[in-house]
């Protein structure tokens, strides 16, 4: 008799529940959707237990299933709320550039050593808040590109957009995120300074 390829499913929730939930939360930014996908992941895993080879860790196997569920979720969202003009329109604040396309007031100096920021829990919190503040289409595209690390071809298929539109969406998303961080983090710390 061989060693069972995966552990008792009744222990899955305690072992992997928090891990899968965090994984889903950072990508979906929606608690109830994240809970649902964790549940769906376990149920799908239960059905396909036979196919788990034990070649990868159980956690990796479960995350692989969750990744597909997340992509499906984005696909559904894209169908329900297709790209709007607003997603492709001009900047959050058109006054950033003058009529000739030059900065009216450029990005502020973020100072210090930005590499230290990754270790600051509060900065990461602010980053997630700013990401949640984007429109769903912007946030989903950014998440797939920068958090999942998907290539643009895959993202176009999931979100059902052309590559040209995707570049515009990602440009808008990055610009909004940058502005949000500048307003809520960097300018805030400057005010606090001596």
């Amino acid at each position: 008799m061989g060693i069972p390829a995966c552990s008792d499913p009744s222990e899955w929730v305690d072992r992997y529940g928090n891990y899968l939930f965090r994984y889903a939360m950072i990508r979906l930014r929606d608690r109830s959707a994240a809970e649902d996908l964790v549940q769906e992941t376990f149920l799908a895993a239960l059905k396909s237990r036979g196919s788990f080879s034990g070649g990868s860790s159980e956690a990796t196997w479960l995350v692989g299933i969750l990744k597909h569920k997340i992509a499906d979720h984005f696909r559904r969202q894209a169908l329900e709320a297709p790209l709007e003009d607003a997603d492709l329109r001009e900047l959050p604040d058109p006054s950033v550039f003058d009529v000739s396309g030059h900065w009216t007031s450029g990005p502020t100096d973020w100072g210090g050593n930005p590499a230290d920021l990754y270790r600051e829990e509060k900065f990461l919190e602010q980053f997630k808040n700013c990401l949640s503040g984007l429109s769903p289409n912007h946030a989903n595209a950014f998440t797939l590109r920068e958090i999942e690390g998907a290539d643009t071809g895959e993202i176009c298929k999931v979100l059902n957009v052309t590559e040209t539109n995707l570049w515009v969406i990602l440009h808008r998303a990055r610009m909004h995120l940058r502005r949000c961080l500048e307003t809520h983090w960097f300018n805030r710390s400057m005010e606090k300074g001596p």
Partner: protein
Amino acid sequence: MLSCKDVTRLISESMDRSLPLRKRIGVRVHLLICRFCARYERQLLLIRETARRIAAAEDRPGEPSGETLPEEAKVRIRQAICNS
């Protein structure tokens, strides 16, 4: 001549695909003389790096920090596993 507005768009685009040579050169030349656009590029790269760090930190199993699955959801999910 590329404007700053064009260059910000192309900086983002260059993070998603390799730009055609002419555009790539245009952006590089602009960045040499425009400190605002150069700063903008550094900030976008910081944003990219931060997103990656967040993914890497949250994707490790067994990390104690961060959000946890609420207890009532755990109960519900355990139930669903038993029933299926």
